[in-house]
């Protein structure tokens, strides 16, 4: 995956390129808005652009405005040192897809970049965490080599949790995500599916943690 990082702070730019590089991405760094604009004019090979707002030469707003004016749809993640509402709104209005306020957790940055890249690529064939894996085409769940039997709704809940691994998801989000399979679902029903799933994936080295009164997190068991 090719990522273009436009950031004038040398320490941060180097850190971004190390972190993203560590996740198997090919990172190109530019430290100037005008240069970034020229580069993006010639050929957009990047799958995601990570763009700082406060840049020498041409600011990030202008870079993204020109990019969109040329009809490019490459996903742009804005980095901003200011969290004023004007900046956020303006960035998204100019055509940015997402923004992060500095300083951010690198895990958050990687997750957002991957999410943006995923928009433009076909669905993955499978999802996995620990010893648990889902074959999305065959609709088959495995713990290690062993196939486990899941009902349609249990599958939907598990797929949603795995798509959002390590993130807190609310019971309502789960209901909304699996609604096509069930038009009428109560919060209690979600609890029932979760407790069944817990039994079925008990040996997978993953755990579904309850966030009291809110929802769940699927994570590696500790």
């Amino acid at each position, binding site marked *: 995956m090719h990522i273009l990082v436009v950031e004038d702070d040398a320490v941060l730019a*180097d850190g971004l390129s190390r972190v993203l590089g*560590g996740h198997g991405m090919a990172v190109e760094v530019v430290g100037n808005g005008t240069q970034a604009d020229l580069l993006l004019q010639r050929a957009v090979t990047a799958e995601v652009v990570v763009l700082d707002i406060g840049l020498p030469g041409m600011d990030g707003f202008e870079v993204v405005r020109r990019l969109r004016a040329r009809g490019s749809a490459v996903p742009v993640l804005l980095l901003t040192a200011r969290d004023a*509402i004007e900046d956020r709104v303006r960035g998204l209005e100019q055509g940015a897809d997402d923004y992060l306020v500095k*300083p951010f957790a690198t895990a958050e*940055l990687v997750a957002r970049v991957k999410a943006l890249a995923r928009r433009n690529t076909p669905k993955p064939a499978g999802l996995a965490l620990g010893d648990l894996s889902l074959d999305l085409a065959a609709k088959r769940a495995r713990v290690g080599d062993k196939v486990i039997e899941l009902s349609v709704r249990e599958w939907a809940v598990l797929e949603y949790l795995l798509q959002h691994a390590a993130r807190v998801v609310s019971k309502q989000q789960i209901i909304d995500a699996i609604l096509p399979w069930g038009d009428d679902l109560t919060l209690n029903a979600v609890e029932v599916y979760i407790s069944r799933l817990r039994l079925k994936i008990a040996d997978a080295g993953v755990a579904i943690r309850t966030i009291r*009164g*809110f929802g769940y997190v699927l994570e590696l068991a500790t």
Partner: protein
Amino acid sequence: MSGSIRLRLLRWVIPPVLLMNLLAGALAYMLAPPPLREVVLRTLVLLEIVFALGCVGLVWFSVSNGLRPLSRLRSELNAREGDDLAPIAAAEVPYELEPVVSAFNGLLAKVGEGAQARQDFLANVAHQLRTPLAGLKTQLEWLGARHTEPDTAKSVGLMLSATERMIRQTNQLLALARAEPHHFEKTRLEPLALDALVADAVQSFVDQARLKNIDIGFDLAPATVVGDRFLLRDLIDNLIDNAIRYTPPHGAVTVSVRPKLLIVEDNGPGIPLARREQVFNRYVRLDDKTHGSGLGLAIVRDIAVVHGARLTISDPPDGSGALFTVKFS
């Protein structure tokens, strides 16, 4: 020039009056026929005493009466909050006091400009710090994710936690500058779902609680309030951050939203009655061992004030801990 206005007036009024009366008395005494002189003298002395007392009374009364607008001004100024630098309304004071009031308003304006410049400077510095802090954090997280030997890993971990503290304090300085009453913009007010504002921030609270082994729970009912999205988010963040910070490991924190209410309950050490007012002051910390700038609850208070919300601390229903309630109007 100091001293009492009343005494100064008396010093100027009484001697001439006495002198005039003495001269008039001496004249009357000499002109009166000799058998009546003693009666005239007695009467004059009595009149003199009554007259002098009357003068003192009159001076006392008029000065007190004249000073009444001043004492009203004093009690108004005493009732002000420390950061209320609004000018005194010149229309409500007597003509004679106007120069004093306008001089005072000039001073208030200068102090206000100073405070504004200080806040702007603070916000600017905090913004400037964010990029280098982001660089530092990114580099350290990269280093920490590699399998280094234990000593190095420990050192990286310590640097990372110091960086996190700097980041937190930088963000608090910004929130504080934003929550200043004279920065508050009424135009930004909009109806907001309080429960959704809390739900949006759940991930960071869960991560933070997990690091301290604290059981965090939520009880969110739909609730709409009118407010500033970013300020309310700061309020929620700081209130919950405070609860997690002061609750010992294996404790519990529960966040509830009800119509017009935000309630954060913890089963930590609680706050003694006598200190409940104090904790909302800037730079106050109950426990010096806990890291923090002491700004969190001051930010919460400032934001509650500009939203016209009431902020109270009480005991949780089941005894130990603290229960913070923000009641929106």
